[in-house]
């Protein structure tokens, strides 16, 4: 076992016992990146070569010098007997949708490819203040618009470490892939419809979407401002809790952060699940999606092996003293995607209007007749197809003559989705749940090229994760087995506002109870292929 494969909490202990240095940990991660990552994503990166097809390609920008300097600084603090912070010497990657001062902050888009952020996002600043070491910026779907990373303008796009012919999920695909491949123990992602939890499930890692307002969005390049949540990806629940501890909390620079003290996420982590009420909902065991040809809606049961893992998880929790409540109605789950198609597009179109080739980022090199022509040419050349699609849809559904029919209606449907959760978690209500246990995704990872281009089918990959974004409630995805192709299956825990401590506690109980299962010993394919 190399240092880069150890959990953050173990590395932290070894560092404080002076058995390893921060420099050695960082170097171990850099060596792993060297071995498995291949060439970084770049503009006009061309078709993948056979060699590319075996690599992870998590990174857009590797900040090696900065990482080594940060690691040395931690070692100096330790040598001087100073407290270097709770995440001292722990390497992490950052989804390239966060601004980090002095680094290219690209959103995986041509329009921001040359933008060097003049300031640092609050969650990154807090990670660094806690002593964590930034390894670099990792790839994503362009502006986060996708569930596979294939839409990135920086190619080759990330691949799934469990099988590089498959997508890592998205949009935090580079984050999930970098953590799964042992390139970093932690990564900072964002979740607008499932963009932390879905890639976490696809890559066999833990992903936490905190309650909306729990983690600051300052310095996050905005997509859907009422939905975006920064959060951790990690290889185990303890590490995810450690990271959430570092990044959560009010921020004067983001007025939507909740002015609530941050609880100790580690204190009760291993207190078990006895007495907790955990629900299962039939509405999370079926998927509803439009047929690509007829447009008719079809309801389909979930793949049996995914449902089986969720029911097995329920059995494990029951055996540890949790009470499993069956048949919790969440009837508005199926409207999550249609409502999201409206709400997120309106917010995206609004947020993308700032990219105009004037103040920063890409400007067309072509001659232009006037400012409007500059806007049009710049945006046409700078944006890929997915941002264009979202802008156009946002313009349409928010147009004066349609907004009552679409936008206002979607916001009212959002109320119904929120009510499903309020009723399930109401401490005085019929169900009184501490958490809802569901699958994270309707399928395991799909093959590269299998879905990309069909924007509707791609969006339905988020069907089981997006309701939590509408409702603002927290969710945790944790790996819970492998499918028949050896690809990870994720299970999801959803809870009431600010219930991260109990969700993490349940997730940790599931992790500990299944610690000795054979699938947990299996490594992703890209690591199995490493010499030695």
């Amino acid at each position, binding site marked *: 076992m190399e240092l880069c494969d150890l959990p953050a909490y173990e590395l932290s202990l070894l560092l404080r016992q002076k058995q390893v240095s921060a420099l050695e940990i960082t170097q171990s991660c850099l060596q792993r990146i060297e071995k498995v990552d291949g060439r970084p994503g770049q503009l006009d990166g061309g078709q993948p070569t056979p060699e590319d097809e075996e690599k992870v390609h998590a990174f857009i920008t590797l900040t090696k010098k900065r990482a080594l300097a940060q690691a040395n600084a931690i070692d100096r603090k330790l040598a001087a007997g100073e407290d270097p912070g709770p995440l001292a010497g722990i390497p992490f990657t950052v989804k390239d949708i966060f601004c980090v001062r002095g680094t290219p902050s690209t959103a995986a888009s041509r329009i921001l490819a040359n933008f060097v952020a003049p300031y640092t996002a609050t969650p990154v600043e807090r990670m660094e203040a806690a002593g964590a070491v930034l390894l670099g910026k990792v790839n994503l779907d362009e502006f986060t618009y996708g569930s596979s990373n294939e839409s990135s303008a920086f190619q080759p796009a990330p691949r799934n470490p469990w099988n590089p012919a498959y997508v890592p999920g998205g949009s935090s695909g580079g984050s999930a892939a970098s953590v799964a491949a042992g390139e970093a123990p932690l990564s900072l992602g964002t979740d607008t419809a499932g963009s932390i939890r879905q890639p976490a499930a696809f890559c066999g890692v833990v992903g936490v979407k905190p309650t909306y307002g729990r983690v600051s969005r300052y310095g996050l390049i905005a997509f859907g401002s009422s939905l975006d949540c920064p959060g951790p990806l990690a290889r185990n629940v303890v590490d995810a809790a450690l990271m959430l501890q570092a990044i959560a909390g009010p921020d004067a620079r983001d*007025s939507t952060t909740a002015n609530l003290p941050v609880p100790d996420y580690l204190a009760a982590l291993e207190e078990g699940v006895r007495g907790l009420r955990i629900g299962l909902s039939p509405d999370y065991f079926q998927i509803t999606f439009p047929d690509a040809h007829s447009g008719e809606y079809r309801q389909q049961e979930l793949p049996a092996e995914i449902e089986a893992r969720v029911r097995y998880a329920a059995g494990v929790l029951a055996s540890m003293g949790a009470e499993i409540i069956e048949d919790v109605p969440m009837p508005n789950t199926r409207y999550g995607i249609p409502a999201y198609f409206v709400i997120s597009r309106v917010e995206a179109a609004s947020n993308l209007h700032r990219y105009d080739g004037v103040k920063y980022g*890409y400007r067309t090199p072509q001659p232009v007749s006037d400012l409007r022509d500059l806007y049009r040419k710049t945006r046409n050349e700078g944006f890929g197809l997915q941002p264009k699609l979202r802008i156009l849809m946002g313009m349409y559904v928010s147009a004066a003559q349609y907004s009552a*029919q679409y936008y206002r209606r979607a916001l009212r449907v959002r*109320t119904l989705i929120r009510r499903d959760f309020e009723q399930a978690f109401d401490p005085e209500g019929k169900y009184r749940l501490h958490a809802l246990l569901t699958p994270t995704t309707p399928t395991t990872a799909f093959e590269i090229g299998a879905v990309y281009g069909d924007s509707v089918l791609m969006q339905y990959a988020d069907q089981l994760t997006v309701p939590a974004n509408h409702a603002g409630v927290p969710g945790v995805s944790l790996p819970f087995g492998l499918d028949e192709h050896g690809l990870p299956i994720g299970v999801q825990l959803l809870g009431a506002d600010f219930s991260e401590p109990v969700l993490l506690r349940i997730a940790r109980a599931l992790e500990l109870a299944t610690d000795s299962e054979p699938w947990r010993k299996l490594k992703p394919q890209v690591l199995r292929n490493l010499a030695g």
Partner: protein
Amino acid sequence: MTDRIDPQTFAHLVDLAALELDEQQAEYLRRELNAQLSAIHELEAIPLEDDLPITSHGVPYPPQISQPPRADEWQPYPDPQEIIAQAPESEAGYVVVPDIPHTTLE
């Protein structure tokens, strides 16, 4: 399934969005827009009570957990040149743009 967004409406949206598309992109984008609208169509069939309020974001913000407003005070940025330097074209501290079209309102 008839296309709700016909080529004329589409051209108007492209103009509003300040985009300029080639034919191939336009064809793909219009097809996907119509496919997405079919998915959105499902919303129209949901019975909604008349007094059902909107939710503009999920978590309620009662005053006790809301951020207090910041003091409205001017805070100088330490290095404005650093910001200006990001502009594709600048001159003497100003951002340079081509001619700004003017429309005279009647």
